[in-house]
Protein backbone atom coordinates (compact mmCIF):
# COMPACT_ATOMS: atom_id res chain seq x y z
CA UNK A 1 0.00 0.00 0.00
CA UNK A 2 1.26 3.48 -0.89
CA UNK A 3 0.14 6.46 1.17
CA UNK A 4 0.91 10.02 0.22
CA UNK A 5 0.16 12.39 3.12
CA UNK A 6 -0.27 16.11 2.73
CA UNK A 7 2.66 16.77 0.47
CA UNK A 8 3.77 20.25 -0.49
CA UNK A 9 6.11 20.76 -3.42
CA UNK A 10 7.11 23.88 -5.30
CA UNK A 11 9.77 24.59 -7.92
CA UNK A 12 10.95 28.18 -8.35
CA UNK A 13 7.86 29.64 -6.66
CA UNK A 14 5.54 27.47 -8.76
CA UNK A 15 3.44 25.30 -6.45
CA UNK A 16 3.03 21.79 -7.86
CA UNK A 17 1.39 20.09 -4.87
CA UNK A 18 -0.29 21.77 -1.93
CA UNK A 19 -1.62 19.52 0.84
CA UNK A 20 -1.97 16.68 -1.65
CA UNK A 21 -2.84 13.22 -0.32
CA UNK A 22 -3.59 9.93 -2.05
CA UNK A 23 -3.87 6.29 -1.15
CA UNK A 24 -3.07 3.36 -3.40
CA UNK A 25 -4.19 0.04 -1.99
CA UNK A 26 -2.28 -3.19 -2.35
CA UNK A 27 -2.76 -4.90 -5.75
CA UNK A 28 -4.71 -1.94 -7.07
CA UNK A 29 -4.04 -0.16 -10.37
CA UNK A 30 -4.31 3.58 -9.87
CA UNK A 31 -3.73 6.03 -12.67
CA UNK A 32 -2.98 9.72 -12.19
CA UNK A 33 -4.37 11.82 -14.98
CA UNK A 34 -4.59 15.49 -15.81
CA UNK A 35 -3.18 18.22 -17.98
CA UNK A 36 0.55 18.49 -18.50
CA UNK A 37 2.37 20.50 -15.85
CA UNK A 38 0.08 19.22 -13.09
CA UNK A 39 2.86 17.06 -11.65
CA UNK A 40 1.84 13.56 -12.82
CA UNK A 41 5.35 12.36 -13.64
CA UNK A 42 6.72 14.26 -10.64
CA UNK A 43 4.43 12.20 -8.42
CA UNK A 44 6.06 8.98 -9.67
CA UNK A 45 9.45 10.53 -8.90
CA UNK A 46 8.24 11.46 -5.42
CA UNK A 47 7.22 7.83 -4.80
CA UNK A 48 10.76 6.78 -5.81
CA UNK A 49 12.34 9.59 -3.71
CA UNK A 50 13.94 11.23 -6.74
CA UNK A 51 12.00 14.39 -5.95
CA UNK A 52 11.63 15.20 -2.27
CA UNK A 53 8.62 17.31 -1.27
CA UNK A 54 9.29 20.23 1.07
CA UNK A 55 6.55 18.92 3.36
CA UNK A 56 4.51 15.78 3.87
CA UNK A 57 5.21 12.11 4.07
CA UNK A 58 5.20 9.02 1.84
CA UNK A 59 4.68 5.57 3.29
CA UNK A 60 5.01 2.32 1.40
CA UNK A 61 3.73 -0.82 3.11
CA UNK A 62 3.68 1.26 6.30
CA UNK A 63 7.38 2.17 6.00
CA UNK A 64 8.24 5.86 5.71
CA UNK A 65 10.25 6.86 2.65
CA UNK A 66 13.31 8.15 4.48
CA UNK A 67 17.04 8.03 3.59
CA UNK A 68 17.40 4.96 5.82
CA UNK A 69 14.60 3.06 4.04
CA UNK A 70 15.00 4.34 0.50
CA UNK A 71 17.17 1.45 -0.75
CA UNK A 72 14.78 -1.20 0.56
CA UNK A 73 11.68 0.60 -0.74
CA UNK A 74 13.13 1.29 -4.19
CA UNK A 75 13.93 -2.40 -4.27
CA UNK A 76 10.19 -3.13 -4.20
CA UNK A 77 9.58 -1.01 -7.29
CA UNK A 78 9.98 -1.23 -11.01
CA UNK A 79 9.85 1.92 -13.16
CA UNK A 80 8.80 2.24 -16.79
CA UNK A 81 9.99 5.69 -17.93
CA UNK A 82 8.10 8.00 -20.24
CA UNK A 83 11.07 8.50 -22.52
CA UNK A 84 11.87 5.21 -24.21
CA UNK A 85 14.81 6.71 -26.08
CA UNK A 86 17.24 5.73 -23.38
CA UNK A 87 20.89 5.90 -24.44
CA UNK A 88 21.05 2.12 -24.77
CA UNK A 89 22.15 0.21 -27.88
CA UNK A 90 20.05 -2.93 -27.67
CA UNK A 91 18.17 -5.36 -25.42
CA UNK A 92 21.37 -7.11 -24.32
CA UNK A 93 22.71 -3.74 -23.11
CA UNK A 94 19.45 -2.97 -21.38
CA UNK A 95 19.46 -6.32 -19.57
CA UNK A 96 23.04 -5.79 -18.44
CA UNK A 97 22.35 -2.19 -17.32
CA UNK A 98 19.59 -3.19 -14.94
CA UNK A 99 21.27 -6.43 -13.89
CA UNK A 100 18.43 -8.58 -15.27
CA UNK A 101 20.53 -11.42 -16.71
CA UNK A 102 18.74 -13.95 -14.48
CA UNK A 103 15.35 -12.78 -15.77
CA UNK A 104 16.12 -13.30 -19.48
CA UNK A 105 13.68 -16.23 -19.79
CA UNK A 106 10.90 -14.08 -18.29
CA UNK A 107 11.75 -11.17 -20.60
CA UNK A 108 11.46 -13.27 -23.76
CA UNK A 109 8.20 -14.85 -22.56
CA UNK A 110 6.74 -11.39 -21.94
CA UNK A 111 8.04 -10.17 -25.29
CA UNK A 112 6.29 -13.06 -27.01
CA UNK A 113 3.07 -12.00 -25.28
CA UNK A 114 3.75 -8.44 -26.46
CA UNK A 115 4.13 -9.75 -30.04
CA UNK A 116 7.85 -9.07 -30.34
CA UNK A 117 9.84 -11.98 -31.73
CA UNK A 118 13.18 -13.05 -30.31
CA UNK A 119 14.92 -11.91 -33.50
CA UNK A 120 13.17 -8.53 -33.50
CA UNK A 121 13.98 -7.93 -29.84
CA UNK A 122 17.70 -8.36 -30.43
CA UNK A 123 17.85 -5.70 -33.16
CA UNK A 124 19.71 -2.44 -32.39
CA UNK A 125 17.33 0.04 -30.74
CA UNK A 126 17.83 2.61 -33.50
CA UNK A 127 16.28 0.10 -35.93
CA UNK A 128 13.13 -0.29 -33.79
CA UNK A 129 10.04 1.91 -33.65
CA UNK A 130 9.07 3.85 -30.51
CA UNK A 131 6.27 1.35 -29.86
CA UNK A 132 8.63 -1.64 -30.11
CA UNK A 133 11.13 -0.03 -27.73
CA UNK A 134 8.27 0.77 -25.35
CA UNK A 135 7.17 -2.88 -25.31
CA UNK A 136 10.76 -4.10 -24.80
CA UNK A 137 11.27 -1.74 -21.84
CA UNK A 138 7.92 -2.76 -20.34
CA UNK A 139 8.87 -6.45 -20.70
CA UNK A 140 12.22 -5.86 -18.98
CA UNK A 141 10.63 -3.93 -16.10
CA UNK A 142 7.79 -6.43 -15.55
CA UNK A 143 10.13 -9.42 -15.75
CA UNK A 144 11.84 -8.23 -12.54
CA UNK A 145 8.74 -9.36 -10.68
CA UNK A 146 8.67 -6.40 -8.28
CA UNK A 147 5.72 -5.73 -5.99
CA UNK A 148 5.09 -2.15 -7.16
CA UNK A 149 5.11 -1.10 -10.82
CA UNK A 150 5.34 2.57 -11.74
CA UNK A 151 4.50 3.41 -15.34
CA UNK A 152 4.99 6.91 -16.75
CA UNK A 153 2.85 7.39 -19.88
CA UNK A 154 3.14 3.70 -20.83
CA UNK A 155 0.93 4.17 -23.88
CA UNK A 156 2.83 7.00 -25.55
CA UNK A 157 3.87 6.07 -29.06
CA UNK A 158 1.68 2.96 -29.17
CA UNK A 159 -0.94 2.12 -31.78
CA UNK A 160 -4.30 0.78 -30.57
CA UNK A 161 -3.30 -2.84 -31.13
CA UNK A 162 -0.14 -2.55 -29.04
CA UNK A 163 -2.05 -0.55 -26.45
CA UNK A 164 -4.61 -3.33 -26.04
CA UNK A 165 -1.86 -5.96 -25.77
CA UNK A 166 -0.19 -3.99 -22.95
CA UNK A 167 -3.52 -3.46 -21.19
CA UNK A 168 -4.13 -7.23 -21.38
CA UNK A 169 -0.68 -7.94 -20.00
CA UNK A 170 -1.06 -5.47 -17.11
CA UNK A 171 -4.55 -6.80 -16.28
CA UNK A 172 -3.17 -10.32 -16.07
CA UNK A 173 -0.48 -9.37 -13.57
CA UNK A 174 -1.16 -10.97 -10.21
CA UNK A 175 -0.40 -9.40 -6.83
CA UNK A 176 1.01 -6.17 -8.19
CA UNK A 177 0.34 -2.61 -7.13
CA UNK A 178 0.43 -0.45 -10.23
CA UNK A 179 0.73 3.32 -10.29
CA UNK A 180 0.54 4.81 -13.75
CA UNK A 181 0.36 8.22 -15.32
CA UNK A 182 -1.62 8.69 -18.50
CA UNK A 183 -4.33 10.63 -20.21
CA UNK A 184 -5.18 7.97 -22.74
CA UNK A 185 -8.93 7.23 -22.30
CA UNK A 186 -8.55 3.52 -23.20
CA UNK A 187 -5.83 3.12 -20.58
CA UNK A 188 -7.82 5.07 -17.98
CA UNK A 189 -10.79 2.72 -18.50
CA UNK A 190 -8.59 -0.28 -17.76
CA UNK A 191 -7.48 1.03 -14.34
CA UNK A 192 -9.16 0.33 -10.98
CA UNK A 193 -9.07 3.98 -9.99
CA UNK A 194 -8.27 7.26 -11.71
CA UNK A 195 -7.08 10.25 -9.70
CA UNK A 196 -7.38 13.54 -11.54
CA UNK A 197 -4.67 16.06 -10.69
Amino acid at each position, binding site marked *: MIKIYNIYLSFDDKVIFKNFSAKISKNEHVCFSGQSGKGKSTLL*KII*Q*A*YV*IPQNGEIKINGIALT*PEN*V*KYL*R*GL*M*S*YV*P*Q*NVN*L*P*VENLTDLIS*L*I*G*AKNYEKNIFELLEFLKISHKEALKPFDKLSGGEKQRIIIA*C*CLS*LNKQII*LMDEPTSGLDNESLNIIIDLVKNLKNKTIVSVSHNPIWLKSCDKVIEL
Partner: protein
Amino acid sequence: MNHGAQDISIISLAIGFLILLIPIFILIHFKIKIIKDLAISLLRMTLQLSLVGIYLEVIFRINNLWINLVWIIAMILVTAWTSIKRVKLNFKKYFFPISLAVLISLFITDLFFIGTIIRPTYLFDARYLIPISGMILGNSLNHNIVGMSTYLDAFRNKKELYYFILTNSGSRKLALEPFIREAIIKALNPLIAGMSVMGLISLPGMMTGQILGGSSPATAIKYQIMIMIAIFTGCFFSLILSLVFANKRLFDKFGNLSHN
Protein backbone atom coordinates in the same frame (compact mmCIF):
# COMPACT_ATOMS: atom_id res chain seq x y z
CA MET B 1 77.23 10.78 -25.11
CA ASN B 2 76.01 12.95 -22.29
CA HIS B 3 77.09 16.50 -22.96
CA GLY B 4 74.55 19.25 -22.25
CA ALA B 5 72.72 21.08 -25.02
CA GLN B 6 74.23 24.23 -26.53
CA ASP B 7 73.15 27.11 -24.27
CA ILE B 8 71.06 29.97 -25.77
CA SER B 9 72.16 33.45 -24.77
CA ILE B 10 69.58 35.98 -23.58
CA ILE B 11 70.21 38.08 -26.71
CA SER B 12 69.68 35.04 -28.97
CA LEU B 13 66.48 34.24 -27.07
CA ALA B 14 65.28 37.82 -27.58
CA ILE B 15 66.07 37.53 -31.30
CA GLY B 16 63.95 34.36 -31.30
CA PHE B 17 60.93 36.50 -30.45
CA LEU B 18 61.47 38.58 -33.60
CA ILE B 19 60.04 35.90 -35.89
CA LEU B 20 56.68 36.55 -34.23
CA LEU B 21 56.59 39.91 -36.05
CA ILE B 22 55.51 38.09 -39.22
CA PRO B 23 52.35 36.48 -37.75
CA ILE B 24 51.61 39.72 -35.84
CA PHE B 25 51.83 41.72 -39.09
CA ILE B 26 49.43 39.27 -40.79
CA LEU B 27 47.06 39.38 -37.78
CA ILE B 28 46.99 43.19 -37.97
CA HIS B 29 46.45 43.11 -41.72
CA PHE B 30 43.43 40.81 -41.43
CA LYS B 31 42.13 42.63 -38.32
CA ILE B 32 42.18 39.42 -36.29
CA LYS B 33 41.91 40.66 -32.74
CA ILE B 34 44.03 38.15 -30.86
CA ILE B 35 47.23 40.19 -30.64
CA LYS B 36 46.49 41.35 -27.09
CA ASP B 37 45.83 37.75 -25.97
CA LEU B 38 48.99 36.61 -27.76
CA ALA B 39 51.07 39.33 -26.09
CA ILE B 40 49.70 38.49 -22.63
CA SER B 41 50.29 34.76 -23.18
CA LEU B 42 53.86 35.32 -24.39
CA LEU B 43 54.59 37.56 -21.42
CA ARG B 44 53.07 35.12 -18.94
CA MET B 45 54.87 32.15 -20.48
CA THR B 46 58.23 33.95 -20.37
CA LEU B 47 57.73 35.13 -16.79
CA GLN B 48 56.38 31.81 -15.49
CA LEU B 49 59.09 29.73 -17.15
CA SER B 50 61.82 32.11 -15.97
CA LEU B 51 60.57 31.75 -12.40
CA VAL B 52 60.33 27.96 -12.80
CA GLY B 53 63.92 27.99 -14.11
CA ILE B 54 65.10 29.93 -11.06
CA TYR B 55 63.37 27.81 -8.43
CA LEU B 56 64.16 24.51 -10.13
CA GLU B 57 67.84 25.54 -10.17
CA VAL B 58 67.59 26.13 -6.41
CA ILE B 59 65.55 23.00 -5.66
CA PHE B 60 67.87 20.80 -7.74
CA ARG B 61 70.93 22.25 -6.01
CA ILE B 62 69.57 21.81 -2.47
CA ASN B 63 67.91 18.44 -3.29
CA ASN B 64 66.44 18.10 0.20
CA LEU B 65 63.81 15.43 0.92
CA TRP B 66 61.44 17.80 2.74
CA ILE B 67 61.72 20.64 0.24
CA ASN B 68 61.07 18.19 -2.59
CA LEU B 69 58.02 16.76 -0.78
CA VAL B 70 56.64 20.21 0.04
CA TRP B 71 57.05 21.10 -3.61
CA ILE B 72 55.15 17.96 -4.71
CA ILE B 73 52.36 18.64 -2.18
CA ALA B 74 52.06 22.20 -3.52
CA MET B 75 51.75 20.82 -7.07
CA ILE B 76 49.05 18.35 -5.90
CA LEU B 77 47.03 21.10 -4.20
CA VAL B 78 47.24 23.35 -7.25
CA THR B 79 46.10 20.43 -9.44
CA ALA B 80 43.11 19.74 -7.17
CA TRP B 81 42.25 23.44 -6.85
CA THR B 82 42.36 24.00 -10.63
CA SER B 83 40.27 20.86 -11.32
CA ILE B 84 37.57 21.97 -8.87
CA LYS B 85 37.54 25.51 -10.25
CA ARG B 86 37.29 24.36 -13.87
CA VAL B 87 34.60 21.73 -13.17
CA LYS B 88 32.76 24.38 -11.09
CA LEU B 89 32.40 22.29 -7.97
CA ASN B 90 31.96 23.56 -4.43
CA PHE B 91 35.51 24.22 -3.18
CA LYS B 92 34.82 23.47 0.50
CA LYS B 93 33.11 20.16 -0.27
CA TYR B 94 35.49 18.80 -2.89
CA PHE B 95 38.97 20.15 -2.15
CA PHE B 96 39.86 17.39 0.29
CA PRO B 97 38.53 14.38 -1.70
CA ILE B 98 40.04 15.54 -5.00
CA SER B 99 43.40 16.39 -3.37
CA LEU B 100 43.42 12.96 -1.74
CA ALA B 101 42.63 11.27 -5.07
CA VAL B 102 45.49 13.11 -6.81
CA LEU B 103 47.88 12.39 -3.92
CA ILE B 104 47.16 8.63 -3.88
CA SER B 105 47.38 8.28 -7.66
CA LEU B 106 50.69 10.20 -7.77
CA PHE B 107 52.09 8.20 -4.86
CA ILE B 108 51.32 4.88 -6.61
CA THR B 109 52.69 5.94 -10.01
CA ASP B 110 55.81 7.67 -8.64
CA LEU B 111 56.60 4.78 -6.34
CA PHE B 112 56.27 2.28 -9.16
CA PHE B 113 58.04 4.17 -11.94
CA ILE B 114 60.76 5.98 -10.00
CA GLY B 115 61.19 3.32 -7.32
CA THR B 116 61.18 0.19 -9.47
CA ILE B 117 61.84 1.21 -13.09
CA ILE B 118 64.30 4.14 -12.98
CA ARG B 119 65.73 3.27 -9.54
CA PRO B 120 67.86 6.38 -8.93
CA THR B 121 70.43 6.16 -6.13
CA TYR B 122 68.29 8.52 -4.12
CA LEU B 123 64.52 7.81 -4.43
CA PHE B 124 63.49 11.41 -3.74
CA ASP B 125 66.04 12.93 -6.13
CA ALA B 126 64.55 16.22 -7.31
CA ARG B 127 65.92 15.64 -10.82
CA TYR B 128 63.55 12.66 -11.27
CA LEU B 129 60.80 13.26 -8.73
CA ILE B 130 59.80 16.80 -9.71
CA PRO B 131 59.72 16.61 -13.53
CA ILE B 132 58.08 13.15 -13.60
CA SER B 133 55.47 14.14 -10.99
CA GLY B 134 54.92 17.39 -12.87
CA MET B 135 54.23 15.56 -16.13
CA ILE B 136 51.83 13.13 -14.42
CA LEU B 137 50.02 15.91 -12.56
CA GLY B 138 49.80 18.22 -15.59
CA ASN B 139 48.17 15.45 -17.61
CA SER B 140 45.99 14.28 -14.70
CA LEU B 141 44.67 17.82 -14.39
CA ASN B 142 43.52 17.99 -18.03
CA HIS B 143 42.02 14.53 -18.08
CA ASN B 144 40.40 14.93 -14.66
CA ILE B 145 38.67 18.09 -15.84
CA VAL B 146 37.36 16.35 -18.97
CA GLY B 147 36.32 13.23 -17.03
CA MET B 148 34.62 15.01 -14.13
CA SER B 149 32.82 17.46 -16.44
CA THR B 150 31.60 14.58 -18.63
CA TYR B 151 30.41 12.71 -15.54
CA LEU B 152 28.42 15.65 -14.19
CA ASP B 153 27.02 16.65 -17.59
CA ALA B 154 25.93 13.05 -18.20
CA PHE B 155 23.97 13.08 -14.92
CA ARG B 156 22.34 16.40 -15.77
CA ASN B 157 21.40 15.27 -19.28
CA LYS B 158 20.54 11.63 -18.63
CA LYS B 159 18.75 11.74 -15.28
CA GLU B 160 16.04 9.42 -16.65
CA LEU B 161 18.62 6.72 -17.32
CA TYR B 162 19.96 7.00 -13.77
CA TYR B 163 16.45 6.77 -12.25
CA PHE B 164 15.55 3.91 -14.58
CA ILE B 165 18.58 1.80 -13.63
CA LEU B 166 18.52 2.68 -9.92
CA THR B 167 14.87 1.77 -9.38
CA ASN B 168 14.85 -1.31 -11.59
CA SER B 169 18.18 -2.77 -10.51
CA GLY B 170 18.03 -1.52 -6.92
CA SER B 171 21.81 -1.11 -7.16
CA ARG B 172 23.56 2.24 -6.98
CA LYS B 173 26.73 0.63 -8.32
CA LEU B 174 24.91 -0.49 -11.49
CA ALA B 175 23.22 2.92 -11.82
CA LEU B 176 26.57 4.73 -11.71
CA GLU B 177 28.38 2.36 -14.09
CA PRO B 178 27.33 3.86 -17.46
CA PHE B 179 28.22 7.35 -16.24
CA ILE B 180 31.65 6.31 -14.95
CA ARG B 181 32.25 4.44 -18.22
CA GLU B 182 31.39 7.53 -20.28
CA ALA B 183 33.65 9.75 -18.15
CA ILE B 184 36.62 7.38 -18.49
CA ILE B 185 36.19 6.98 -22.25
CA LYS B 186 35.92 10.74 -22.86
CA ALA B 187 38.84 11.55 -20.56
CA LEU B 188 41.29 8.89 -21.67
CA ASN B 189 40.49 8.58 -25.39
CA PRO B 190 42.69 11.55 -26.40
CA LEU B 191 45.59 10.07 -24.43
CA ILE B 192 45.15 6.67 -26.09
CA ALA B 193 44.88 8.29 -29.53
CA GLY B 194 47.98 10.39 -28.80
CA MET B 195 49.99 7.32 -27.81
CA SER B 196 49.06 5.49 -31.00
CA VAL B 197 50.55 8.18 -33.27
CA MET B 198 53.48 9.10 -31.05
CA GLY B 199 56.63 9.34 -33.15
CA LEU B 200 54.63 9.39 -36.40
CA ILE B 201 52.85 12.74 -36.19
CA SER B 202 54.69 14.33 -33.31
CA LEU B 203 58.00 13.92 -31.56
CA PRO B 204 57.24 14.18 -27.86
CA GLY B 205 58.65 17.23 -26.07
CA MET B 206 60.29 15.28 -23.28
CA MET B 207 62.14 13.02 -25.70
CA THR B 208 63.25 15.97 -27.84
CA GLY B 209 64.41 17.75 -24.69
CA GLN B 210 66.42 14.75 -23.54
CA ILE B 211 68.10 14.36 -26.93
CA LEU B 212 68.95 18.09 -26.97
CA GLY B 213 70.20 17.69 -23.39
CA GLY B 214 72.69 15.08 -24.52
CA SER B 215 70.97 11.73 -23.91
CA SER B 216 71.18 9.09 -26.62
CA PRO B 217 67.97 8.62 -28.68
CA ALA B 218 67.70 5.06 -27.28
CA THR B 219 67.66 6.34 -23.68
CA ALA B 220 65.30 9.18 -24.60
CA ILE B 221 62.87 6.74 -26.22
CA LYS B 222 62.90 4.39 -23.23
CA TYR B 223 62.16 7.33 -20.94
CA GLN B 224 59.42 8.54 -23.26
CA ILE B 225 57.72 5.11 -23.33
CA MET B 226 57.95 4.88 -19.57
CA ILE B 227 56.61 8.38 -19.00
CA MET B 228 53.66 7.76 -21.34
CA ILE B 229 52.73 4.63 -19.37
CA ALA B 230 53.19 6.58 -16.12
CA ILE B 231 51.01 9.43 -17.41
CA PHE B 232 48.27 7.04 -18.54
CA THR B 233 48.33 5.14 -15.24
CA GLY B 234 48.45 8.35 -13.19
CA CYS B 235 45.55 9.89 -15.13
CA PHE B 236 43.52 6.70 -14.82
CA PHE B 237 44.01 6.37 -11.05
CA SER B 238 43.47 10.06 -10.50
CA LEU B 239 40.18 10.10 -12.42
CA ILE B 240 38.82 6.88 -10.91
CA LEU B 241 39.70 7.95 -7.37
CA SER B 242 38.36 11.49 -7.92
CA LEU B 243 35.05 10.01 -9.10
CA VAL B 244 34.88 7.52 -6.22
CA PHE B 245 35.77 10.10 -3.54
CA ALA B 246 33.61 12.85 -5.06
CA ASN B 247 30.64 10.45 -5.36
CA LYS B 248 30.27 10.45 -1.59
CA ARG B 249 29.54 14.19 -1.74
CA LEU B 250 27.91 14.45 -5.17
CA PHE B 251 24.79 12.65 -4.02
CA ASP B 252 22.40 13.49 -1.22
CA LYS B 253 21.17 11.00 1.38
CA PHE B 254 18.48 9.76 -1.04
CA GLY B 255 21.09 8.99 -3.70
CA ASN B 256 20.05 11.94 -5.89
CA LEU B 257 22.57 14.29 -7.51
CA SER B 258 22.94 17.11 -5.01
CA HIS B 259 22.40 20.67 -6.24
CA ASN B 260 25.82 22.06 -5.29
